[in-house]
């Protein structure tokens, strides 16, 4: 059985039908990429999975448990962490306080400080700035902080929303290398990206979302060679 199963979910913003029956699965240990244009419903899909939005139809199964009506603040405890769109760091708190909030639901002090060191090892830049207020970090550092914070809950499934958005190319490479590293330590990842090229390089499988529906789903390699994907999302004639 898959770790995450999204079955035919329908989601609305007011009267706008944003997701029209999206289904996808993520197997344990995979990186799955969800690509698509602006307004295709990528972020909405993630928001629905993590409980910020409840589906009006369909259901979401995580490790055999139905998540469709579970409020967002219970998901961390179940093993799902999210790197939100636009990073969502707490800009008035210090880097360390941000990371500690990532471990909000945990009570094992020793484990938390161990994981804090792991994050600082993964992102040495954050270690240098641990007492600094997070709002003073650069965009790339804020992205590292958002990822580090999500790792602080020891998630089984990590949801990432546009981690490369607004970053310089060299930082984009670093972020994607880190995504692969995180995955190698056993964390399953569902990645939403506009940068389809990079997203399909690191993923094992991918889904193409278009106006609230899954248009294509295949292995990442097959999608990279798909004429339509190449034309629309990879910009290759």
């Amino acid at each position, binding site marked *: 059985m898959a770790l995450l199963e999204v079955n035919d979910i329908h989601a609305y913003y007011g009267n706008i039908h944003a997701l029209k029956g999206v289904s996808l699965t993520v197997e344990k240990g995979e990186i799955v990429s969800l690509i698509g244009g602006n307004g295709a419903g990528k972020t909405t899909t993630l928001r629905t999975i993590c*409980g910020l939005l409840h589906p009006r139809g369909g259901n979401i199964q995580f490790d055999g448990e139905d998540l469709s009506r579970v409020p*967002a603040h*219970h998901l961390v*405890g179940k093993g799902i962490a*999210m790197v939100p769109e636009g990073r969502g*760091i707490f800009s*008035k*708190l210090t880097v360390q306080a941000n990371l500690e*909030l990532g471990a909000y639901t945990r009570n094992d002090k020793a484990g938390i400080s161990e994981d804090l060191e792991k994050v600082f090892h993964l992102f040495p830049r954050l270690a240098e700035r641990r007492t600094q207020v997070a709002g003073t970090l650069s965009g790339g550092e804020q992205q590292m902080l958002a990822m580090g914070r999500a790792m602080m*809950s020891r998630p089984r499934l990590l949801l990432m929303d546009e981690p490369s958005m607004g970053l310089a190319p060299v930082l984009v490479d670093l972020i994607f290398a880190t995504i692969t590293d995180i995955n190698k330590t056993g964390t399953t990842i569902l990645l939403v990206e506009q940068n389809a090229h990079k997203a399909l390089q690191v993923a094992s499988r991918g889904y193409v979302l278009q106006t609230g529906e899954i248009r294509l789903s295949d292995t990442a390699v097959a999608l990279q060679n798909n004429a339509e994907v190449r034309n629309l999302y990879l910009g290759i004639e």
Partner: protein
Amino acid sequence: MEDLRRRLDGVSWVDLFLWGLRIVIILLIVVGAFNTLTSGKYTITTWISLSISGLAQGSIYALIALGYTLVYGILLMINFAHGEVFMAGAFTTVFIANYFNRIGFLNTYPLLAILILMVIAALVSMSVAVLLERIAYRPLRGAPRLVPLITAIGASFFLQYSFRGFYGSGFQTYPTVTALSGTFTVGKVTIPVVQVVVFFAAIALMSGLYWLVERTKMGKSMRAVSEDKEVAALMGIDINRVIVFTFAIGGMLAGAAGVINGLYRPQGVYFFMGFIPGIKAFTAAVLGGIGSVPGAMLGGLFLGVIESIGPNLVLEGLGIDGANQLKDAIAFTMLVLVLIFRPQGILGERLSEKKA
């Protein structure tokens, strides 16, 4: 001349008017203060004792102001019923205080009795604040910001007249605590004991709150929620719990302030007593920078002192009679001044786009 004209080119009439207003106000303050000080009517001792009574009054404002600022920090709404939360505690405990006085408990163990009264008042005000959130504000969480504001005003009337229904419309008076009724002298200044007790009791409560917000896990989650509710939820923080907790803490401080206020100004306890302190505390919160915890504390003390020395210092120098009765005018003039000179308050940050 050419240069001046070019500089004035980009300035609108509104700006010019505001600048004129600022200059006039500053002139009035300077002239008034100068006249009073050169007339030699008051000695330095008078100013010191006025400042001390101002600090005592201001610390009560600060305690109430914290309730406004905490709720604003989290929900971006002004809980205009907060004055009534204060009234609920003060009004309920006045009867208990008088009972304690009748059986002799109040004057045999003044400290214990006052502590018990503060705890009771804190619990009453906390319950009112929490119910207010649950019944009046939570259903409107997603509504436009004007809606909860109007609801708050309605809730304020509802509470006033409910308490009139419970306890009647008469004026009640807190009993005198003998241990606090004396004075002592430092140098040439005579200080009433009660003012010192009021000030330090308020400072103790505020230090407690500061520790709570800065050092505890709940405080951290409050700060996280005030910055971004959705991301805070993704961290596993139960937003509703944090909001209820915020109302509860603000209510407890207001309730305790109700008893402290009763020690300082025993008279005038009735169902409408929360209105003026509520508005003053709101002014104090805006003065300090609404949303900022140290700002509310500072704003409260500042407002208390200004209100205490302002009438004698500025108004008498301008030849206005009965200046002491105009302390409310001074307080609200301060609000207008702050809004003109520093809209974000003393310690406030400029409103970001998110909050504006």
